[in-house]
Structure formats: structure tokens, C-alpha cells
């Protein structure tokens, strides 16, 4: 006798699981970057349009398919059409790729979290050089936070080819990260359902704390004004719309099979239409919320750096011309510079290369995304706050929750088809299958803990999932609308939920979303073909800057 399918204890667990999966690191570190690059407040317009045009319909589609077919991705697509089980397999493979490299981020978050329990924070100051007369040279040239990230965390090698050895500290953290994921998925929905209460709600608590702290920081307003002034001319740039579409698409995690897996554990009468709307709206709102926090932090960091720069210039001038302390301030700096240039032209000319032009806009303009934002910019801002240990612990714990929430979805996408298939599930219990998957991923993930690991990580992050997902979701939409038939799908939804989808959903599913995806797909293909040799950013220890390789 077959076991009945495990279910979520209540619909709230399902909603939390979807939110926990969809709200991930991309909301925190990619959306603020896009906002900054493509027109500030004006970026919200294409973003919301894309949410309505492709985000909500595609999310509803995946949830409905999962809930109706009550199988993981392979089984669900096999039911729609036996020729389409390849779509399911593709989803599983992409999820596997993602879980390989994504957990390394959690390992890094653990590393920073464990290092937050020290006073002072290890990334606050540079370490001393061997004869204790000054600071390490590599650290002097950049900043202490960059040094901590590139040297003490990653121990990065100069190029992709120089693989180096596995860093045992990172390997330990990676193992711990996989053990945590294993603990959460061990019992399937019984354990996952409890964990998602924490992973979905805790990031919001931390974000609210950071919002309050961020808004009260000195200089935060500069960042917010900079972000929210809309630069509407960016709307005419096609890249803006493409970035908005891409961001919505990947932020919701479509095409991995995780949403289908989660929805398959639903009661068949669950109102997935309402849940789809709720999840997509919460996801977008979280992105905007996180970018408010990020921009106040940016503003604080930029103002702090600007003021340090001015103070350095003042000190330089005071020392060179032996002026009285306090005679040069930020306000009279420009007049005094002119006066000194006129009175001591020769000495001033000698000093001129060292006198930097400090500009607040230049500091704000440094747009960073990805691990650079999460681990360098934020840690730099945190070290300058009061009680930095507390904020550091909160922040990295939040990153951990976001990352683990997404990992739960990924592993669910891999495990649900495996546990559904009778061949495997009859021989091994669920715990063994989960254990084997986690173990294999952990071993493969050790590549990313090597010295060149961050370069591999960048490669996987940029190229592992992009095109494949677009293709998968395109085939999914066409399969449901045209192969399965939109009328049959309508009827299924009516039986499940009790109301037929209205014309908005049908038009989006049948025409708008597929067209959008096709145009995105064509754009990315031509972009790859035109770029030719792909490049990556390498860290040059002698110059301490990123160079293209």
C-alpha cells in the first residue's frame, strides 16, 4: 500500500515556504544595484510592469501545475505530456547546479557570523606587518574590509588557473552549512514546514531593526535622496527593461522546480491564486524595502568616507604648512586651498598630487552588487557603527536565514522528484536520499573553497542558470497553454479553487509572458555571441584592485 503524500500542516507553512524561497539574497544585493544603475526611483516603473506582466502569471502557473499534478517537476511534466519529462529533468539539473554553489554563500555568512564575536571586529583594522612598524602592505593599499574578504576569508589566488589548495576553514564552514540544510530537510515537509516559520520571518525583523538604525545614521539621507531621485531618461534605455524583466524572473525562482515541489505538498483545494499574488507582492516589496536599508547604509558609508577624505586633506595641509590646528575646517577648506596656492606656490605644487578632490557624489556612485555589497560594503558600514558586534551578528544571521530559505527550496526541487519516483523511494528511506544528495553537493562544493574558488563561484553565478531557466519556463508556459490546453487548465483550476481564471491571467499566460521570455532569451543569446571571450574580474595582490582577466 502506498504512503499518502505528506502535506503542509496549514496553508501558512506553504506561503512561508514560498516567501522564504523567493526572498533571497538577490533581493538584498542585486535589486539595490539595479535601482542605482537604471534610474533610481524611476526603475520601479519597469519593475512593477514586469511584475504584472510576467511575475505573477508565471508564479501562479507553476504553483497551479504543482498543486494539480501533486508530483515533483519530473512527474508533473510527464503527466502533462510524456514527451515533456525532459523539462522536469532540466529543472532538476539546474537546481543541482544552483545548490552546488549557492551554499558556499551560507558558508561565508557563517564565517563572518563566527568572527563577529570579537572586539574589535577583525575587519575593522589591518593586521600588523612582520616587524610591527606598520600595517600589512596589501591591506594598506586597499581597505581593511576588502583585505579581510579577499585575503583572510577567500585567500584568493591571482587567476583562475592557479587553483591553490582547499582552505580548511571555509571547508569546515561549508560542511556546517550542509549539515544545517540536511537538518532542515531531513523529515521532508514535517521539518521544513517548521523551519520556514523562522527563515521567512526573521529577515524581516532584522531588516526593520536595520531600517531604524540605518535611517538614524549620519549621512543616511544623502544615500536615500540619491536613490529616490528618479532619472527618467533611463527608461528609454532597453537595458533597463531587460534588467527589470530578468530581476523579476530570477527573483521569484521560476523554472527550478522548487515551486512545483512546494505546491505539490498542498491540499488540492488550496487557493494558489491568492497565494501567488501574495508571494509575488511580498517578494517585490521586500526588494524595495531592502534597497531603502541598503541605500541608507550607502549614504552613511559615503558620507563617512567623504569626511575622512576631507580630514586627511586638512591634516596634510596643516602638517605641510605648519598651520595652527583648527584653522582649516571642512567649510573654509576651498578658500584656504586657494590662499595657500597663492602664497606658497612651489610647496603647494609639490603637494598637489597628494591632495585628493573629495566628492560625495563620487563616493555614492560606486555601485556594488553581489558578494561585494553583502560582505565588503556592509561590513565596512557596520564597523563604524556603535556596538558593531551586535549589528554584525544580526546582519550575517539574516543573510544566513535568507540563504538557507532559498536552499530549502532548491533541495526540495531535487528531492521531490527523487522521492516521488518509486524506483528510488522504495529502496531507500527519505533520510538516506537527502543525506546522499547533501553529501555529494558538499564534496563538489569544496571546489569553491579553494583559492580560486571565488572565480568559479562567479562563473557559476553568472552562467549556470540564466539561459537554461529562460528556456525551461518558456517551454513550461507553451506546454501548459498549448499542449495541455488552456481550457483544460481552466477547468482544473475551477475544480481546485472554485473560480475560473479571468482574462488577465489567460492573456498573460498565452501571449505576453511567452513573448517576453522569447525576447529576453534572444537578447541574452546575442549578448553572449557578441561578447566573444568571456571575462572575469581577478584580484591583483600587488595592486589590490580588480583587473579583468
Amino acid at each position, binding site marked *: 500500500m502506498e504512503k*499518502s503524500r505528506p502535506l503542509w500542516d496549514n496553508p501558512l507553512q506553504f506561503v512561508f515556504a514560498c516567501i522564504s524561497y523567493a526572498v533571497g539574497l538577490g533581493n538584498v544585493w542585486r535589486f539595490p544595484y539595479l535601482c542605482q544603475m537604471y534610474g533610481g526611483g524611476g526603475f520601479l516603473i519597469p519593475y512593477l510592469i514586469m511584475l504584472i506582466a510576467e511575475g505573477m502569471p508565471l508564479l501562479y502557473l507553476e504553483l497551479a501545475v504543482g498543486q494539480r499534478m501533486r508530483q515533483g517537476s519530473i512527474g508533473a511534466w510527464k503527466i502533462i505530456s510524456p514527451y515533456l519529462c525532459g523539462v522536469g529533468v532540466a529543472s532538476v539539473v539546474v537546481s543541482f547546479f544552483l545548490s552546488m554553489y549557492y551554499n558556499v554563500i551560507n558558508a561565508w555568512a557563517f564565517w563572518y557570523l563566527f568572527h563577529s564575536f570579537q572586539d574589535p571586529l577583525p575587519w575593522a583594522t589591518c593586521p600588523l606587518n612582520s616587524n610591527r612598524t606598520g600595517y600589512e602592505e596589501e591591506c594598506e593599499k586597499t581597505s581593511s574590509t576588502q583585505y579581510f574578504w579577499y585575503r583572510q576569508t577567500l585567500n584568493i589566488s591571482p587567476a583562475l588557473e592557479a587553483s591553490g589548495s582547499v582552505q580548511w576553514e571555509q571547508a569546515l564552514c561549508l560542511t556546517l552549512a550542509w*549539515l544545517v540544510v540536511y537538518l532542515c530537510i531531513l523529515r521532508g515537509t514535517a521539518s521544513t514546514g517548521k523551519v520556514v516559520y523562522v527563515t521567512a520571518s526573521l529577515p524581516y525583523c532584522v531588516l526593520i531593526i536595520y531600517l531604524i538604525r540605518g535611517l538614524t545614521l549620519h549621512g543616511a539621507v544623502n544615500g536615500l535622496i540619491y536613490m529616490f531621485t528618479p532619472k527618467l531618461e533611463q527608461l528609454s534605455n532597453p537595458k533597463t527593461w531587460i534588467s527589470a524583466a530578468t530581476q523579476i524572473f530570477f527573483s521569484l525562482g521560476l523554472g527550478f522546480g522548487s515551486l512545483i515541489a512546494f505546491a505539490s505538498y498542498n491540499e488540492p483545494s488550496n487557493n494558489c491564486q491568492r497565494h501567488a499574488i501574495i508571494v509575488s507582492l511580498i517578494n517585490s516589496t521586500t526588494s524595495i524595502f531592502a534597497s531603502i536599508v541598503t541605500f541608507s547604509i550607502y549614504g552613511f558609508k559615503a558620507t563617512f568616507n567623504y569626511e575622512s577624505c576631507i580630514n586627511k586633506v586638512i591634516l596634510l595641509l596643516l602638517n605641510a604648512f605648519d598651520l595652527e590646528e583648527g584653522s582649516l575646517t571642512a567649510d573654509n577648506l576651498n578658500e584656504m586651498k586657494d590662499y595657500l596656492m597663492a602664497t606658497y606656490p612651489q610647496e603647494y605644487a609639490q603637494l598637489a598630487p597628494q591632495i585628493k578632490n573629495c566628492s560625495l557624489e563620487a563616493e555614492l556612485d560606486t555601485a556594488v552588487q553581489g558578494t561585494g555589497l553583502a560582505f565588503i560594503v556592509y561590513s565596512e558600514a557596520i564597523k563604524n557603527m556603535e556596538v558593531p558586534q551586535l549589528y554584525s551578528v544580526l546582519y550575517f544571521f539574516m543573510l544566513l536565514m535568507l540563504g538557507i530559505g532559498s536552499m530549502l527550496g532548491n533541495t526540495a526541487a531535487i528531492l521531490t522528484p527523487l522521492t516521488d519516483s518509486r524506483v528510488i523511494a522504495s529502496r531507500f528511506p527519505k533520510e538516506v536520499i537527502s543525506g546522499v544528495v547533501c553529501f555529494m553537493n558538499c564534496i563538489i562544493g569544496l571546489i569553491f573553497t579553494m583559492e580560486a574558488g571565488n572565480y568559479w563561484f562567479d562563473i557559476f553565478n553568472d552562467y549556470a542558470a540564466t539561459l537554461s531557466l529562460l528556456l525551461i519556463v518558456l517551454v513550461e508556459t507553451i506546454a501548459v497553454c498549448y499542449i495541455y490546453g488552456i481550457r483544460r487548465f481552466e477547468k482544473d483550476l475551477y475544480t481546485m479553487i472554485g473560480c475560473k481564471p479571468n482574462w488577465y491571467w489567460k492573456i498573460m499566460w498565452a501571449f505576453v509572458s511567452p513573448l517576453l521570455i522569447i525576447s529576453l532569451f534572444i537578447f541574452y543569446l546575442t549578448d553572449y555571441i557578441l561578447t566573444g571571450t568571456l571575462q572575469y574580474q581577478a584580484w591583483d595582490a600587488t595592486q589590490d584592485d580588480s583587473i579583468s582577466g
Partner: protein
Amino acid sequence: MLRALLLILSVVAIAHAELCKPDAQNAFKVRISIKTALGDNAYAWDANEEYLFKAMVAFAMRRYSSKSATQISNVLLCNVTDRVSFWFVVTDSSKNVTTVPGSEVEAAIRMNRNRINNAFLLSDKTLQFLKITSTLSPPVDPPTPVWLIVFGVVLCLIVAGIVFLIVSGIQKHKKKNKEPTERENLEEKVEVTLENGIPCEALDLKAGHINGVFAADDDRFTSL
């Protein structure tokens, strides 16, 4: 008599001026940032402070080479600016017109840097001897890195959780195998609940599985 005295004094003054001037041999530049260090409690730099400085340098020289009898008058200050920065040399007490080698002065000041700083309520950064690099104090390094301790704690908790869940799962499995009849009853209940919750005709549910192939086939045949 007076003239002789004046002559000697002027000779000494000129000699001193030659010994102590910017970039002279064995001379060191000192830069003091009182306002940066003390803010509102800053004191003014006047002749008394200069006297104290000379005294501290003489003290440092005495401590360094205990046989030397350096006097306050052996320390010469010159070119005091508003910044507050000045140059100083230490003359040899035995031979009046020469200066103590720079290396000795440097070593003496290095040895007593802490005392000199404290006398002026300043630190290495705010009382700078420009050619004398200060030895930076190393950060406190605990024998076991702190992060390993936290890591160990978290690791033990997680492993304990995993072991507990696995063991309880195995026990539950054993209980299930011992009582198959109870399992049958449970499944029937589940079936009943499902059937009650949903209109039965459209979905043929059997223990939670939809035989989708059959449902698909039905539709196809009816439309023909």
C-alpha cells in the same frame, strides 16, 4: 668682564643656532596635535610645556645610557610653529659643541615613548617624532581563535539535532512495522478526509495519487 660674558653668550647662542636648525644633523622634528587629542581640554603650548619637553628628553637620555649626565640645558629646541611643531637636538654634555648621535637619541626616546606620551596626555599619533617609527602594539590573540569556539558549539548543536531526528525516525519506523493494522485504519481515514474535502467526480484520488494519464485520455475520447 661684562663684554667677555656677552661674547661667550653670543658664541654659545650662535653655536646653539647652528646645532639646532631644521634638517640639521642628529636633529628630530616633533609634531604635536593637542586639540585633536584633547578637544575641549586642550592646553596651550607655551614655554612651560617646552621646559617639560626638554626635561622628558633629558630624562629619556639619562635612563637610556645611565652613565650619561644629560642636563635640561643640553636639549635645544628651535623653529616652534603654530602647528605646534619644532626641531630639537641633544648636545653632548662633555663636549659642548657637538650633538649626541641620532641613533642614541632615537633609541632613548623609543625606550621611554610611553612615559613621554603620558607626561603630555598624548599618544603615539598625536605626539609624533617624525623620523622615529613607533612599535605598534599587536592585537590580543587568544590561544584558540574565538570563531572556532562558536563554530564548535553550533556544530555540536546541529549534529545533536540530526542524530535525534534520525534516531526518532528509526524508532517510529520500527513501531510502524510492528502494527500494520493501525496503519491501514489511518490510511482509510486520510482517504475519507480527502474525499470529503473535494468534489469527487473530477479527481480520481487513490491514496493521494492522481492517475493523470487516465484523466487525460478520458477528455480526448469525449471530444471525438
